[in-house]
Every structure is written in structure tokens, then in C-alpha cells.
């Protein structure tokens, strides 16, 4: 565990504050998730399951919290972030290291493709490795939780971020506006709050948006 001191807050919505590892795991109403209960449910479904939800619904954040809780409980955990199907090699290595009871936590499970995913799930079962994955849709693994979002979730996250200048803290109207603009994608909503913070900090003369791709 790392304690920190001394960094200026800067923009509270910058990546270092809002990346999944830095955010708390909250439910759609903004309440802390019961990680212990989720782990119990994970054991009940056999140790392998999927966290399902749309973009920016908190799957990765929850995955990281569950991984940390599993580790804290003395389990072997490997974290794998899939970008392309070519990432099967590190995934295979992680599954091998987690043989006989360890858990491979996989972000972006769908990137593997349907057939390779089935093969990996089968191979993991064969070696006794468990899989905890994030996915946009239910798949071959049982669904542990469907992640959902709401303005209350964004409000709760904002309240937990570091406070800089009090005058720049977004209000309820800001949260509602960015949640609507981001179509429920919390990550996107937090980035929109970043823009609002920058505009307010620099004064009204500065336009908000850049070009995004």
C-alpha cells in the first residue's frame, strides 16, 4: 500500500484521478460496492465469471478492486488487458501461472474473439485457472454483475475526487449535463468535466472543445 503526499491537485478530472485503478468501486446509485459479497458470489458460480456492461460503466474499475481483494485474500491473481487477438500469449502465460486455483483477471475479453475465448475458457478449466473478465455482452462465462450508471454515480465519484479550488467544483447541473452528453458513459462524463474545469480555470474566453478521435 502506498501513501502519498505533496502532489498538487491540478485538474481533479485528469487521468491520474479518474483512471479505473484510482476510482472507488461504486454501484449505479453511487454507493460503495460490497466486494466481499461479490467474491462470495464469484465462488458460488465456480470462480469464473464476467462483469458485463457498456463502455464507461465501471467494469474495469470493479475488476481491479476484485483483483485486489482476491490478492488480499491470499489468492494468486494475474491481470491481463487484451488489446488484440495477438495478446493470447501473455494470456496463456497468465493462465498457466494461475493453474490450480489462481484467477486471471482479463479486461476486454471480447477482443479475443468468440472462438479463441471459448478455447481459453476451456483451457483455463483444464488447468484449474479461474477467469474474471469484463465484457460488453453476456458470453460463455456466467455473468457476475451487470454494471449500470446514473447521474448519482457521477455525483458520488466527483465527491470522492480530490478537491482543488472550491469555486471550480461542478454542481448538480454540470453532472446532469455531462451525463446526458456522454450518454451514460461515466468515463466520458468525467472527461467532459475535465474540459469544464479547464474552461472555468482559464476564464470564459477559452472555448471548450478540442478534436477527438
Amino acid at each position, binding site marked *: 500500500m502506498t501513501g502519498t503526499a505533496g502532489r*498538487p491537485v491540478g485538474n481533479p478530472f485528469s*487521468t491520474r484521478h479518474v483512471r479505473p485503478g484510482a476510482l472507488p468501486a461504486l454501484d449505479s446509485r453511487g454507493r460503495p460496492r460490497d466486494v466481499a459479497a461479490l467474491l462470495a458470489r464469484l465462488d458460488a458460480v465456480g470462480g469464473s465469471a464476467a462483469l458485463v456492461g457498456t463502455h464507461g460503466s465501471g467494469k474495469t474499475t470493479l475488476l481491479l478492486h476484485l483483483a485486489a481483494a482476491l490478492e488480499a485474500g491470499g489468492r494468486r491473481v494475474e491481470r491481463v488487458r487484451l488489446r488484440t487477438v495477438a495478446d493470447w500469449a501473455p494470456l496463456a502465460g497468465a493462465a498457466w501461472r494461475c493453474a490450480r486455483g489462481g484467477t486471471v483477471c482479463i479486461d476486454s475479453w471480447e477482443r479475443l474473439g468468440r472462438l479463441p475465448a471459448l478455447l481459453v475458457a476451456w483451457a483455463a478449466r483444464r488447468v484449474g485457472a479461474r477467469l474474471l473478465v469484463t465484457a460488453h455482452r453476456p458470453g460463455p462465462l456466467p455473468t457476475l454483475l451487470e454494471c449500470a450508471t446514473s447521474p448519482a454515480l457521477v455525483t458520488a465519484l466527483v465527491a470522492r475526487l480530490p478537491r482543488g479550488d472550491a469555486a471550480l467544483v461542478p454542481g448538480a447541473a454540470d453532472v446532469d449535463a455531462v451525463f446526458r452528453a456522454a450518454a451514460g458513459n461515466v468515463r466520458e462524463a468525467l472527461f467532459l468535466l475535465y474540459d469544464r474545469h479547464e474552461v472555468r480555470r*482559464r476564464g470564459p474566453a*477559452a*472555448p471548450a472543445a478540442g478534436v477527438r478521435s
Partner: protein
Amino acid sequence: MNVAEAGAAAAPVPAPRVGVQFDRPDRRYAAEQELAVRYDVAGIEPAAVRALERSVVWYTEGKGEEDLGVHRFERLEGAARLAEALPGGTIAVRLPASPLSYEGVVVKIRWCVRVRLFFASGRDFVSEHVFDLGTVPPARGAVERTA
């Protein structure tokens, strides 16, 4: 020099306090200038410290993932070396010509002195102290791209 405490919810017990004194009170340095920092660590039992790292680094901040560059790094282990570095010590280094500190809209570049303590319990504590390299003014904001 007072240090603003931020995000210290996970600070170990007992919470260390790291105070630093820059040789330039305004913490503004020119490119390739010498930097000297005196630090003092309080609130710890020196025997509980397994190692100490002191470094001068720059990092990016903003809407992208953070990138980090290490300009100076030193790890001190063992009783004899730790006795030189605790409860206080000095970091002296010649700063490079780049990257200069920058307060952009989606990209910010910050320089800092870091003192990281590793405890025998397995916990660690890092204290960061930001300073400016160069005098690049903050970006004024986004401008229209269309001609």
C-alpha cells in the same frame, strides 16, 4: 516549507511527514540550472525504514495516460547508507534542458522531487514536491482550427 497534503487517505501509520526546502524559494529553475533540495523526514522510526528512494522526475498529466521521465534516481538501502539519508538529506542535481514545465489544456508537464520510504512492514510512502523548470506560460485555451 509546507507541503500540501493530498490523497493521503492510505497513508501508513505512523504517517511520515516529509518537509523540503528548495534552494530557490520560488521553486522556479532555468534549464540546465543546478537544483539543491534539503529534505527532512519526521514522524517515523528510522529503524522501521527498509529503503529510501530519492529522485527528480517529470511526468505528464491531463487527459492522456501519464508518461514519466526520470532525471535522477537514487535508492539507499542498508543501515549505513540510510543513516546518511535519514532523518534528513540533500538532493543536488543539474537539471536538463527539457522538457520544460508546461500547463497546457490536455497535456501538462510537471517536475518534482520525490522521496519514497519503504517500511519493513511492506508499506511505502511517497512525498512529491513540485517545482518549475523554465518559464513557459500556461496555454490560454483551445483555439479554432478552421482557417
